[in-house]
């Protein structure tokens, strides 16, 4: 009888604890995440030809999600493209074209608000081609920035 009572109390305690601890500590989250994002490559370069021209580079996006699990994907630059000498290229000068078009959307990069890049359900793969217009008004230099891709599921 004591053993049964002990089991019962242990079960209640365990249940309470598991329900109270969110995220990665729950039993659910200990398994595969509900949504996963893969972006390759993780380093991209615009190869600039003489102006006026448009430099292009691309990444492949892979969203892994359970069937019918809804998700949305955004992209944000934390600031303008920056050179070590202090010159800048506004983030808005970078645009992108994404495919397939029914899941991934074309857009313009922002360093203020995350921009919608895709929305769907379940696992999907897409390609995003980033474009940088190369004109004479750009200062010469090596510019760097990171793009933050965020995948979320409600």
């Amino acid at each position, binding site marked *: 009888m004591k053993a049964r009572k002990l089991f019962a109390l242990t*079960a209640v305690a365990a249940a309470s604890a*598991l329900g109270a601890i969110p995220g990665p500590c729950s039993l659910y989250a200990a398994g595969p995440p509900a949504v996963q994002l893969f972006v390759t*490559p993780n380093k991209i370069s*615009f190869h600039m030809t003489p102006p006026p021209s448009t430099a292009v580079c691309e990444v492949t996006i892979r969203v892994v999600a359970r069937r019918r699990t809804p998700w949305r994907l955004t992209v944000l630059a934390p600031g303008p493209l920056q050179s070590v000498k202090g010159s800048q290229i506004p983030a808005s000068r970078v645009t992108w074209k994404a495919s397939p078009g029914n899941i991934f959307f074309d857009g313009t990069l922002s360093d203020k608000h995350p921009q919608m890049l895709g929305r769907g359900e379940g696992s999907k793969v897409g390609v995003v081609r980033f474009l940088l217009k*190369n004109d004479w008004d750009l*200062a010469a230099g090596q510019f760097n920035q990171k*793009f933050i*891709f965020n*995948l979320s599921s409600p």
Partner: protein
Amino acid sequence: MKHSIAFMATLALVLTIIGAGFVHAASDTKNVTLNASVSACATLTLTNTTIGFTVNSSPTTSSTIAGSTTTTVEAQFRNTTATPATLSVAAADLVDGASDTIPITAVHTTAAGTGGGSGFFDTTSRIAWSNSGQQLGTGQSGDYTTTLTYSLDNSWSYKVGSDYTTTATFTLTSL
């Protein structure tokens, strides 16, 4: 009673496990590093590079003689430093076959506009050319276009029947 407690506890555990699978939002974030290498470069384009002056009036009647045509100048450049680029023109004095000369300072150009953007060409005055180089414009990286109009100061010293010539060099310097 005992069975009831055990059942309730088990039920609570099961419900918690199932519930956890439905209520937790999920997200994932990945960063991609971007690099863009922008090279310094400069291009200068001139159209109509042969200019003539026909001096057929006295200095009293016409103090300046207009050039036969205009030149379109396009300066495209990208600086690597904060130092503005410059466009200058230099030429030797005009000379005829008998070594008579017209000083190059008698030749002037006037720019029709600053060239667009933040501006490059000097439009404030009629600029006299020089042997050592006269600045026609200065500014930051960009693509600038203007039209130069030529004029020659008329003078009694010009020799009748002579053909005076020279060659001018336009230099765009971008640092």
